[in-house]
């Protein structure tokens, strides 16, 4: 790692000030919380920030508070806390499961929700400083012609075919979360679907975060407890501690407790596109339907509509369809 200044921030405003207006690009100052992603990028020579701003010294960013049914998660809540917090597990099981399926116990102890959402691509080409890939400011997406077995099956004309690695992000998208972001211009509330953004030539990153922006909180809207459910399922290439080949989160509401008839549903897909994405056609199809093996399978089929696989990842389309159906089936009240 190249040398850097290290500052312990006392307040969010102080942190933003420390992050504002120094170097740009790979040298830009970075906030550090768990450090589990940032330090790996620095060790790999991808990032060489001139300054790190420690957020762990800011008080109050790791709270979980229930405001009249809306759950407010501080950005510094760790994945381990998310997995084990009673309120999260009871009301937003998809998120607890996603947190518990992410990484390893130690990384879940260290990694925070905010950092997890802001983490960078795990694409092997992106992570290797020897490949000046498009996402890093180069001209070529090496994965397109290279080894893309783990890459996107929905690219939506993105020049980059990476997949977003976060498990919680997929769950939060299904759970309709809203992020609070603070920056030099003050505070914004951003629906999670708008927080992630397909990389563009003039914006080569996977989120809307500016250099001095901080995620400070994540809000989960209330769900009718007796007639809602959510699940997150993840496919990996070993039993644990692997990024998702595909992750599926579903959150749905039934017309009445035990009816099995779907009133509303959100399905989010992870590990299959540069950003987590909704399966809109499948959602539309399911509304008003009885959830059973047949409708779940059809939803799975619809969820992969429009998928365009690369040379080595056609298998992911089949996998994703099956996983969507399985995640839906898992919500059926027993």
């Amino acid at each position, binding site marked *: 790692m190249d040398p850097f200044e290290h500052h312990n921030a006392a307040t969010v405003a102080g942190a933003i000030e420390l992050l504002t207006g120094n170097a740009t690009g790979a040298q830009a100052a970075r906030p550090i919380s768990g450090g589990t992603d940032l330090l790996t990028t620095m060790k790999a020579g991808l990032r060489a920030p001139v300054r790190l701003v420690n957020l762990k010294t800011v008080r109050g960013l790791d709270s979980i508070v229930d405001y009249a049914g809306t759950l407010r998660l501080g950005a510094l809540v760790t994945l381990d806390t998310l997995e084990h917090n009673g309120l999260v597990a009871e009301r937003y099981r998809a998120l607890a499961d996603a947190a518990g399926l992410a990484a390893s116990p130690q990384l879940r102890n260290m990694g925070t929700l905010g950092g997890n959402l802001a983490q960078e691509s795990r694409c092997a080409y992106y992570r*290797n400083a*020897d490949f000046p890939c498009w996402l890093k400011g180069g001209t070529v997406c090496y994965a397109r012609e290279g080894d893309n077995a783990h890459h996107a099956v929905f690219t939506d004309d993105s020049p980059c075919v990476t997949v977003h690695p976060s498990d919680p992000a997929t769950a939060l998208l299904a759970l309709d979360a809203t992020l609070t972001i603070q920056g030099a211009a003050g505070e914004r509330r951003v629906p999670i679907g708008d927080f992630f953004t397909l990389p563009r030539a003039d914006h080569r990153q996977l989120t809307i975060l500016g250099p001095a922006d901080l995620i400070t909180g994540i809000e989960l809207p209330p769900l009718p407890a007796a007639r809602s459910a959510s699940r997150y399922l993840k*496919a990996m290439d*070993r039993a644990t501690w692997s990024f998702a080949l595909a992750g599926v989160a579903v959150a749905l509401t039934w017309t009445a407790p035990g009816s099995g008839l779907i009133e509303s549903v959100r399905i989010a897909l992870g590990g299959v596109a540069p950003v987590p994405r909704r399966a809109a056609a499948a959602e539309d199809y399911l509304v008003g339907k009885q959830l059973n093996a047949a409708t779940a399978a059809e939803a799975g089929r619809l969820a992969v509509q429009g998928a365009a696989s690369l040379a080595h990842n056609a298998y992911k389309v089949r996998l994703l369809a099956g*996983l969507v159906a399985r995640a839906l089936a898992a919500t059926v009240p027993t």
Partner: protein
Amino acid sequence: MVRVVRTKVEIEGRTHEEVVVVEGEEPAAWAAGELHHVGQATVRVDGVERVTGSARYTSDMQLPGMLYAAVARCPHPHARLRSLDTRAAEALPGVRAILTHENAPPIPWHGKASRVFDTELRHEGDEIAAVAADDPETAERAARLIRAEYEVLPYVIDAEVAMRPDAVQVHPDGNVLKDEDGNEGETYTRGDVAKGFGAADVVFEGRFSTAAQMHNALETHGSVVAWDGPTLTIYDSTQAIFNVRNRLAQSLGLPLTDVRVIKNYVGGAFGAKLGAYKQTLIAALLARSTGRPIHLMLDRRAENLVAGHRAPSIQHIKVGARKDGTLTALEMRIICPIGAFGMWAPSVGGPAKEMYTIPNMHIQTFGVRVHTGSHSAFRAPGYVEGAVALEGALDEIAAQLGLDPLAIRLKNYAAKDPGSDQAFTAKHLDECYRRGAERFGWAGLRKDLTAARKASGAGSAGTALLRGIGMASQNWGGGGGPTAQALCRINSDGSVDVQCGSQDLGTGTRTVLAQIAADALHLGMDRVRVLLGDTDKPYAPLSGGSMTVASVGPAVRMAADEARKQLLEIASAFMDTAPDRLEIRDGRIVRQGQADRSMSIADVLKEIGDYQIIGKGFRGPNPPEIIRTWGAQFAEVTVDPVTGHVQVVRMTGVYDTGRVINPLTYTSQIHGGIVQGMGLAVTEGRTLDPTSGKSLNANLEEYKLPTIADLPQIDVTWIGEPDFQANHLGAKGIGEPPIIPTPAAIANAVADALGVRVFDLPITPERVLTALAGGMA
């Protein structure tokens, strides 16, 4: 008086003749009645050091004034170094020395094919410069600041492409290794293959492949070195201290007396640490130029690029059989990319040659040089890969004939070596099959699974887990042989040290040798300390080839036996009794039949003052018969048809490797072999970028080692019948045998579960789902 004899020794699937110097008589076969420690489950004598963190591995060595080194490496698979600019690195405070091809002596490396810093760089990670600095961060940063300009050259990483006449040449003498007659590849023939296939009722033909498996020992390769005047001390993470000493002495033009290699603990090796690597020489050169000790450990990325791997294999196999299952012919064409400087091809044909009575056979093996780091031995190199194709083909033949896979193996059981018709010293594989099948519940499960599949209608359309079982056999050497020497010294206080330049890799060597020495001395283990891992000790071979127990064990027993005899001879002078009427019991020297006539060992030693009793032992020649280890494994898997995930649920392994010295560490070896074999079968494989030739998973994130959650239930047992024809301990090695059948058994179980075979390993979700979709896996 010494005598000289010739004998055959097998290492890593290759047999060679060795001259043995013999002095004195080896002890006779060791009867079970003489043993108190051998055969008992014994916790490791160095276990406390390992669980408390006090064990000092090479990377833990910290010497006064020590500098840390880092290496700058070529990022291309093939390039010519145009220029180097080290100014920015030199300017960094704390940088003490930089070595490049411009200022380092041009010491040859990889035979004469390269040198310590070459300007033609033939694989990603090839060394271009090295830095020594005050701390590791500075060294690493300085290495990154070295600017190199390259002429990027055409490369070849695909072995089949590299075999073409118009391929890019890795070296001027061609990409394909040649045999003694100058022909490309190695050819093995017996019988008449055309005739054999003519006699076959059924034929199976298929193309199997296995991936490059990276050792990824948790301690990377590396050395800590220090000069003291003309003498060089090397702490090395190695499994072969004497090989390292020979190589460094030769490279630096030093007599052997001036190079000492020490290895107390090594954090895993698995075959990748059988000789000196370039970084040890670089460390020695940096230490010489700075006058300071140097700490040079590879980082994880370099470990994956330059420190060896199991060569990938492509295996075209064709097998013919009669209706009753009798195998009539086998043909294999084996292609292994061995990296830029590979010097041998793995014995992928080994299982096919020896496992079954196949009368007609033709095997061609091509070791092909390509622009990657070189391969190295990796736990039963070749045999693991070869078993996948052989055992897979056998299952396919069995399926065609409607036979039980176990039945076809028994039908073609080879009681003698099928190639030479020579006898084996011992073979109880049939008993391994029988016990394994029984413990696993093979026959019942086969019946149940067949019935369940009939009932549900064959189909991969469902989403329920698919269950399957498979099995495979194993043959391997493991008989060891000379040369191995040991000393056993009884100190004046009655403590004993056994000295031997062997290595404990975590296999339990220290513990097993302590058990052997204690029993030979008729003493408790608490008296005995085993000193290994130092070239100042008598010679022992590399710790590999499953040969340590069978090579070093007999030498240690003999040394301890000699020491005990001397002690009794000395005692006889004070006890007024012939030495052959004395014995050691409970720490006392006792006159046989007269327990009251005894003397404590301490009192005997007091009589002789500071005299140290020193017993010498050696490993004698091997018998003319063929020494082999045998085993069978049975696997049960589930496959998730939605995610493509293969979970190995259960493994049963039964082994015949002669006498088991320590059931505790023996079992651990089998567990380890199965876990590593499972990695090769389902998760592990290097991926190279098809467009640039660079490695994409030179790390532990994308290279998937098995985790604790991937672990199946493992049931282990053994025959345990001593093989006294092999050596007087009756023991053979267990290091490599347990990994050999694992991938084959798992692949067969997956084929059973899916109803379609995945021919390419690892059997990833991608390959499972592709196979289920009816495509080429």
